[in-house]
């Protein structure tokens, strides 16, 4: 896939999110914890008048919850929004050849870029997994 992606660093690992799923980037700002929230949802934030949930991307991807969270990548899929909290944002670029043989439910592939393995994030899958089934 040659689509344009945003590269970030989360929990010391590199990831790429398709810009078609990214609405923007913001500094982490003031996080309001929500007691009783499901795992990985570290809280909510006021983003230009909207209240969006924040997810620790590194924790979600199994890297533990000790990473420094400096930025949020506002992700969107079919009307659902959230902020993925990451340590660093790198750049926006086209990906080259990706290896799509990857086991994680949240990644669609991986590519070696500048010596680092970059996991390609499946934003839609993450939203699907985190959104509880709507009661009929």
């Amino acid at each position, binding site marked *: 896939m040659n689509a344009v992606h945003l590269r970030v660093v989360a929990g010391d690992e590199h990831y790429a999110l398709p810009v078609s799923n990214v609405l923007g980037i913001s500094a982490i*700002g*003031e996080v*309001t*914890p*929500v*007691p*009783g*929230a*499901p795992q990985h*949802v570290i809280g*909510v*934030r*006021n983003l*230009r*008048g*909207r*209240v*969006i*949930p924040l*997810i620790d991307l590194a924790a979600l991807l199994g890297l533990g919850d000790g990473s420094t969270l400096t930025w949020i990548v506002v992700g969107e899929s079919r009307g*659902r*929004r*959230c902020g993925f909290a990451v340590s660093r944002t790198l750049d926006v670029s086209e990906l080259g050849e990706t290896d799509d043989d990857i086991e994680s439910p949240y990644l669609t592939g991986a590519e070696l870029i500048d010596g680092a393995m970059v996991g390609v994030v499946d934003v839609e899958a993450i*939203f699907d997994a*985190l*959104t*509880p089934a*709507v*009661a009929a």
Partner: protein
Amino acid sequence: MSEVIDPEILLLAREEAEERVENIEKNLLAVESGSNDPEMINELFRDAHSIDSAGAMLGWDAVASIAHSMEDRFNRCRDGEEKLMDAVPEMLISLDEMKGAVSAEVVEAAAEPRTPPTPVPPPPENGRTVAATSNGAPRPRPAQIGSVSAKPIRVSPSKVDRVLDAVGETAVNHHRLAHVLRERLSPEDSAESELELEMGNRMLSELHDSVIGMRTLPLSSITAAFPRAVRDMAVATDKEVELRMVGTDTQLDRSVLEGLPEEIHHVLRNAVAHGIESPAQREAAGKHRRGVITLRAEPRGGLIAIEIEDDGGGVPAKVLAQAEGSASLTELLCAPGFSTAGDVSNLAGRGVGLDAVKKHVDGLGGSIEVQSGPENGTKVILLLPLTLAVLRVLLCERAGQAYGVPLTSVREVVIATDTVSLGGRRALDLNGDPVDFEDLAEELGAPAPELPVGGPALIVDTADRTTALACDTVLGDEEVVLKSLGPLLSSATAYLGAAILGDGRVALILDPNQLVRGPHTPNHTNGHGATALTPIEAGPEASPPASSGEPKVLLVDDQKSVREFQGGILEDAGYSVQLACDGREALERMEESEFDIVLTDIEMPVMDGFELLGAIRGGSAPASIPVVMVTGLGTDEQKQRGAEAGADAYLVKREFDQHALLDVVSALVGA
């Protein structure tokens, strides 16, 4: 010809035409319902005439021609050549044609509406100049004479949202600025800046409130088509039905209004098809031939209630009977595919259709309820969500986090000084009544330091219990726009949502019904559409826990009457009771057999209650057995002493209540 006319003027002309059309329709329906107002025919004529002249002027030939024929007809009615009542059905059909013609005229000219047309006074009788130059010279606008009319201006919703967002960001920026200043300035310098910051805060709050006010629209913005729809449906089913509307000026956030018209239409359809009987049936039942459906809207607590009530025959008796047995009437009628109609009429389709309405309303976070009876007709109540509407909340802080509780659930705010331990739970003395005392942070599972001594507590009333919710500080009440936390946080049921405060902070808005633990009355619909909680046994009739055999109570008191009295209560409730008349005898009993709980008086000869307690805690097996001190005096020192000595609970005979006793025992034995 339309191409040379200023698109803004065209749009304005269309709006005016549409308003006149609406007015004609309203009057025609009124006439059909039997209104005798003599002025009406004049108004009808005038409106038709105005549309005719405007249409002719703008070159809207189709529109003008229809309007002209209507005008002629109204004129004949006015002259007595024809009865207006008889002309109504055909006039309504002509009106529909005219609506179509008006829309068609403006479709090409208007791409995206530009800046909203500025309010202009209605055109004088002899028409006005149409600005039609196409050479780019400044065009003369219709003269604005006199004062600005009160006519509202139309602004696209996205513009209002942009302003709201900008206000929000400004507030956040202000908050950060304040923070930076406070860090950098010395106390002497900060006084002046504090003043300015405070002012800024206030102004931003006001600005915020004003913009929020702009987002709401009256219900009337979607109800205009209903009376006509009801009338048409009635005609199609050979019935006579009138729709009355009350409270349509009730304001709702426009996001709630979206999608509502269809739901209300659904309910109206049911009311006409299934609710209202045929004129013959009604007369036979002693009612007026014409049925009435009333649509009533009003704010109710923090919600908006929209009621649609018909004066028909109500839901059939056998359905009511079914409802009593199993689910509630509401659940029954809202089940998919349910129908009370014997035949499937084209009008109402297969089922009663309420399941779709319920889904929509539930999805918004609201609720639906149906009340019906053979004598009273049927009433459908839609309680519309707080999610998108404006809500008054009481704001408080706990552990640095702001929370809001809907004001309608808050009875009062008190300073929590008098709390006692009762059955393992803390209680607050509220004018003599014990009220459950809960730390807000604990209820939510949020990490927090100890509550401040003498801090505030919100007395929160829910459907079935009252709780004192303790926090660090109370910030005051405020009107907020409730924002949904979104699907990712839908499992966090303690919250209705979140709100963005004037200073940009996010406050979590609590759902009192979900927040406070405790028994819920079964069959009580939760007002927010959440899945019903499994009913826990209500307190007062608590029976002993189903452990092996009956739990054994050791009752210690030196007065026989008391032993008999309390013993009787406990035995009736299913406990096995043994008696002792003082502490020493109690210890002897405990050597002989095992007990689940000890209830002891304090003032007793030989060995009093405290000594007994000490002995139990000091070593007699089992040291951890629950011990309840029951006494004739309720002084604080005694309570304190009891608590320190390790009593689990404290009951005062003077306030003695059979239920309290059983509650306490049940709670401690079950633990």
